[in-house]
């Protein structure tokens, strides 16, 4: 027994010593002569590597010159961790949030306004596409700058269009181009829907609920809106929005609620896998951002049989410059998502990943040096190419357009610059608005509520919530003043 104890103790000591000697070490040594800027970011994998490259380049150039060193730390739930760190008084110097958190966080005093810092670096509205700059601002202050942006377009499967060319022509539709109106989108979809031998849906032409990421903003394609900032009132129950939800419901009515539900449940919520419904050709047309091209391309590296036919190309990407039109290399294509309102063209929704300086950050000036560096045209274009995204900047180089991994980058660029590009409304209770809109949309496409009724209910709930938010804001200001 005594011997066993000694053996166990020696074993444990050996493990402990081994851990101390050979165990983990800090990944990077920090230069003692520079100001250390803590940068928290949500990205991992390829996207994280791309940003790490920008960080390394900054540290080797501007950082070296100005005595700044950015330390990149990747983490999940970055919004919650940033909040907790702010509450504890130890926030990072830079945090990589997403657009929908900006207005909420700024209203709650979590972010430092960047107006003076931006001005001192010559960063002004005219450098950015208007919708992006507008979205970085709220209540007359600049709260963030962009790390990488996104913009939504229609992605369609040209292969499926070609296979069904005769049927499309028979319905009076052109198989060589995408739909240009909502009515055309519905007509294409009807032709491209297919059913299995048991009568279940096998493929849909289009289903607004897949992927469903942009359902909250579908109103924009119908000329509708969510919130009126001038009156601080939600405008959900407008005739345009009701028409939008009628359209949403028309898919459940046409396909049948049960088959639609089973199809949706069947294809799941897969994104970065060959089971992605668009990539696996279960959905012929869907709304997506420019990054989808990158995910499709990455799947070419998969071994058979896990390599989807969607990722097939005529020639390897490195040789596609030899083709007369590099877009011909791919089975898919992108175009503006059609609008329901005649004359309302190039409607889109934009969002972005944002760089902010949290309230109480120790090195705001140094942090902004890095944010400004990321927003330099050359740095931004390289990062956006690596992320397979468009640029938020007005000026875009020829190299960016010609060598971007997405062959349809011009489509995304023109959509983002469009006067009909829309973004999130400036609502400080956006997460709650999203929940209400999601509930309303579900009750409509599951045929449990009429569009008008669902939208009116959501509007009433949200109006009560924003009124309560403003009232408590007023009380808080009053009690602070006294």
């Amino acid at each position: 027994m005594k011997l066993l104890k000694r053996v166990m103790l020696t074993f444990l000591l050996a493990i402990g010593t081994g851990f101390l000697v050979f165990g983990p070490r800090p990944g990077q040594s920090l230069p003692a002569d520079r100001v250390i800027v803590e940068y928290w970011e949500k990205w991992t994998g390829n996207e994280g590597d791309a940003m790490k490259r920008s960080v390394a380049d900054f540290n080797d150039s501007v950082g070296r010159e100005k005595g700044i060193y950015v330390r990149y730390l990747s983490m999940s739930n970055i919004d919650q961790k940033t909040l907790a760190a702010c509450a504890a008084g130890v926030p990072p110097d830079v945090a990589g949030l997403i657009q929908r958190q900006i207005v909420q966080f700024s209203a709650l005093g979590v972010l430092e306004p960047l107006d003076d810092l931006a001005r001192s670096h010559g960063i002004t509205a005219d450098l950015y596409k208007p919708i992006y700059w507008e979205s970085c601002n709220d209540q007359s202050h600049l709260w963030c700058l962009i790390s990488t942006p996104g913009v939504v377009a229609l992605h369609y499967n040209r292969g499926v269009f070609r296979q069904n060319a005769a049927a499309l022509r028979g319905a009076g539709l052109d198989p060589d181009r995408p739909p240009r109106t909502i009515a055309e989108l519905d007509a294409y979809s009807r032709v491209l829907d297919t059913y299995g031998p048991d009568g279940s849906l096998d493929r849909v032409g289009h289903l607004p609920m897949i992927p469903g990421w942009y359902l909250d903003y579908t109103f924009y394609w119908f000329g509708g809106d969510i919130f009126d900032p001038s009156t601080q009132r939600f405008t959900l129950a407008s005739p345009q929005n009701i028409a939008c939800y009628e359209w949403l419901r028309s898919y459940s009515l046409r396909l049948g609620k049960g088959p639609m539900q089973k199809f949706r449940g069947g294809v799941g919520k897969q994104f970065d896998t060959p089971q992605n419904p668009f990539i696996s050709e279960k959905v012929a047309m869907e709304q997506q951002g420019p990054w989808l091209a990158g995910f499709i391309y990455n799947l070419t590296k998969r071994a058979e049989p896990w390599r989807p036919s969607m990722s097939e190309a005529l020639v390897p990407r490195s040789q596609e410059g030899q083709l007369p039109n590099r877009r011909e290399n791919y089975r898919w294509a992108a175009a503006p998502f059609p609008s329901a309102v005649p004359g309302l063209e190039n409607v889109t929704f934009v969002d972005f990943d944002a760089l902010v300086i949290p309230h109480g950050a120790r090195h705001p000036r140094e942090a902004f040096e890095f944010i400004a560096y990321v927003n330099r045209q050359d740095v931004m274009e390289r990062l956006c190419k690596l992320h397979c995204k468009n640029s938020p900047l007005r000026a875009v180089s020829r190299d960016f357009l010609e060598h971007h991994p997405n062959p349809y980058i011009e489509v995304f660029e023109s959509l983002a610059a469009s006067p009909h590009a829309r973004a999130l409304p400036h609502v400080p209770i956006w997460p709650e608005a999203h929940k209400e809109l999601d509930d309303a949309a579900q009750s409509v496409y599951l045929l449990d509520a009429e569009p008008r009724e669902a939208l009116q209910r959501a509007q009433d709930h949200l109006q009560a919530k924003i009124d309560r938010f403003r009232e408590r804001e007023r009380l808080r200001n009053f009690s602070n003043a006294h």
Partner: protein
Amino acid sequence: MRTDLRDLRNGLLFCSPWLVGFSVFTLLPVVICARYSLSDYSATPQPRLFIGAGNYHDLLHDPLFRKSIANTLYYAAIALPAGMLVSLGLALMLNADIRGRAIYRTVIFLPSLVPTVATACVWLWLYNAKYGLINNLLRSIGIQGPAWIDDRHWAMPSLALMSLWGVGNTVVIYLAGLQDVPRDVLEAAEIDGATHWRRIWHVTIPMLSPVIFFNLIMAIITTLQVLTIPYIMTEGGPENATYFFTMAIYDNAFRYLHMGYASAMAWVQLVLILGLTGLAFWTSKRWVHYGGGG
């Protein structure tokens, strides 16, 4: 007296790590939570605003709060008795003297070792309406299975059914309890002509009642706090059919940043659990039999 004091001191010293941990990480947050529940607080630099019972008043008029309570009780009404019955049934079967008993016990216990997220991912595929194993099996016998977690009528029963996957822990506790049922009493009942079922009903279950009671209390607490599985599998949908109470607390605290409101909800949850646990203790006098006369 001196020895008593020394023992007390030593006892306190030995349990001081737990006492400190409990005070700092449980008791203090509970007290702070009570304070926050009386204020509009967002856990941000925004100053806290005292609003008295405002959060509790708002809770009364929050339809999603009422829905989340109803959903949680609905889930508990299915998952709790089903879990108790299945685990007790399995324990009784695994207690029988059969060949390969150790293998059966291991197989029943293994699922409870699988991480919750992995379990949820596997069940997502099992419940997949189009390609899932369950619907494929049903299809092979000519039955069109439902959309399971994508159908608001089936989503909650599906989650409750899935909760049976993790009964292994409870089965182990029952099995331990079954080893304490005196063999002589069972043999006496057998000699008196009691059938197998009568022996279970009149001897085994009364003897096992303290263990059943313990498992009931634990089940009340866990089913009323369920969060992870539905959060991963359904996110509360479809149409809030699986929106649980703890999910509402999480959303309000960490998504909407209404920490004060979420604190009020947490207190309501605590009172609800205490009430149901108290009810279980009150009824226990009638059906729990302690061997030592306790």
